[in-house]
């Protein structure tokens, strides 16, 4: 287990270095920090002096090294727009996005598992066929369109739910603001979380259904029947545990997609999370914020992937967590 973690940590470090290099290169190309700091009316000589002092004329690698050092200490630059440390701005917005992701994951797990299992066990039932049809529809409607439709129906036409913003929040541990614990917050998160879930949920239903159908045809399931076990045990223990394995693997990949989709969803609902912040930063060419976002997202991504791998290793006994199956 330890060897596995060490290896993954090493891989994570390499990936983060690559991301930081790319992010730094972007920073180098985009925008002029000097212009943001001192404006247009300063003479060229003074600009050159300032450039020297700020180290902007140093060789590439020196600047990159400085960037890395700062980053490891938590300094990812200062946002041009917010005039605050970029990392602070991100950490401010992070809880909102996490709330959204938790809520969406809740919908996904709540529906995809039972529906997928049912559709696999009773493939000819009308409910299974309905679920499958709705799944194809769900996959075919881009996430931002679901968001727009939901807003139009529930906010504009029916007026039942709010169409933007986050609502009231409660502060936990004196720093973490969550909206999941207030009624107002819940009414605000309902439409965005359903939108975010709307593309991934059908994918999981189809995935669980097809994997489980394959498992149900396998020899060891037939043997389980031959042993005279109860149906429930065969379905929910013997079959489902095997179904979980490929689902976990694919699910891990979907997390990366979810991060991208939060950008779209937050934009439609003006949800004050990281994704919306990123888009605004792009529109404003707020380079430090863009770069900080990339690094934070890269980190989240690497951590989640590692966690998924560990979970997979724990569920699948044929993998011994040194990274190679025996």
């Amino acid at each position: 287990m330890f060897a596995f973690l060490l290896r993954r940590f090493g891989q994570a470090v390499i990936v983060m270095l690559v991301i930081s290099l790319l992010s730094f290169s972007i920073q180098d190309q985009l925008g002029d920090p000097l212009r943001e700091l001192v404006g247009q009316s300063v003479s060229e000589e003074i600009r050159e002096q300032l450039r020297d002092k700020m180290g902007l004329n140093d060789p590439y690698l020196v600047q990159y090294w400085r960037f890395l050092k700062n980053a490891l200490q938590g300094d990812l630059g200062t946002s041009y727009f917010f005039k605050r440390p970029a990392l602070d701005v991100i950490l401010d917005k992070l809880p909102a996005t996490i709330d959204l992701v938790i809520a969406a994951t809740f919908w996904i797990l709540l529906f995809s598992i039972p529906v997928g299992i049912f559709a696999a066990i009773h493939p000819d039932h009308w409910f299974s066929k309905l679920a499958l049809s709705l799944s194809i529809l769900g996959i075919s409607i881009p996430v931002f369109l679901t968001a727009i439709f939901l807003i139009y129906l529930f906010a504009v036409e029916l007026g039942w739910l709010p169409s933007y913003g986050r609502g009231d929040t409660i502060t936990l541990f004196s720093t973490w603001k969550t909206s999941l614990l207030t009624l107002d917050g819940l009414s605000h998160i309902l439409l965005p979380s359903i939108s975010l879930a709307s593309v991934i949920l059908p994918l999981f239903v189809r995935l669980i259904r097809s994997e489980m159908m394959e498992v149900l045809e396998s020899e060891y399931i037939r043997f389980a029947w031959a042993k005279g076990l109860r149906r429930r045990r065969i379905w929910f223990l013997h079959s489902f545990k095997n179904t979980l394995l490929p689902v976990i693997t694919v699910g891990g990949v979907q997390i990366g997609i979810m991060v991208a989709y939060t950008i779209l969803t937050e934009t439609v609902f003006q949800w004050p999370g990281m994704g919306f912040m990123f888009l605004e930063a792009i529109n404003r060419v707020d380079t430090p914020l863009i770069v900080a976002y990339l690094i934070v997202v890269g980190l989240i991504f690497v951590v989640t992937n590692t966690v998924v791998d560990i979970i997979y290793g724990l569920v699948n006994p044929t993998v011994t967590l040194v990274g190679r199956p025996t």
Partner: protein
Amino acid sequence: MNFSLERMRRSPVYYSFINNKVAMVSAAILSTLLLVSILAPFIAPYDPWDQTAFDIMDSEYPPIGSSGADDRFLLGTDDMGRDMLSTILYGTGISIAIGIFATILQAFMGISIGLVSGYFGSRLDSFLMRIADIQLSFTTLMVAIIILAVFQAAVGLNSYERYALLMIVLVIGIAEWPQYARTVRACVLAEKKKEYVDAVRVIGLRPMRILYRHILPNTFSPLLVISTVQVANAIITEAGLSFLGLGMPITKPSLGSLIRNGFDYIFSGSWWITFLPALVLIVLILTINLLGDWLRDVLNPKIYK
């Protein structure tokens, strides 16, 4: 491969198609969309790309049938006075074009790399597949957002508008080649094990010829299946990018751009500006997905999930 209409009519694929209403209806709708978008320059009542041809005074007319509609504009107008029907026709064309070109690019790259990687194996294979893995772990949408955002910021809005289509196709194409490469490589590895490859090698055929004449034809089925998925995905990705303002500009809008443009107006009542392009986009993606599902079932019910 000799081909005749009679053989096609008797093949199991054709049989399955004729008997599957969903597949037939999807194909019909999709063909119609393709046709009208290709013919858009000829059949659209107005030219939405001509910045001088529309008048802001004509803005926000609803479609025919609602009160306040104008006879000149069948589906109404958008906020700038452009005819909805025309913008949708042209927009569909752009969305489809980007979908197809991006897929062709990724197919070309992916198939070439996959063939070479699978056939020659060893270090080249490991190296290429390592790169593929890394690329696969970054979602295309994320990568596209970053690259296009940087591009847009770096070259300014004017240059951006000129190169937007090319950039989108390039980004989606290059980001997705691993999908094709993986599929082709798996096929190549499976075929390599079969005896006919040894037989042909013994005769002395050169590797390239073996690859193209013998192995490649056996990869057509799985490639066809993932192609439909990839075209649909490319269209969805482009729509998302355009919706964020990082895709096609409003002067040469794709369906995604049109939706973006009309979003704010749903609150003030002009629902058609967003919903009509949205409807077309959904129908487009849905028919491609339905055909893809049917194709997957008919070509091999078990292997492709």
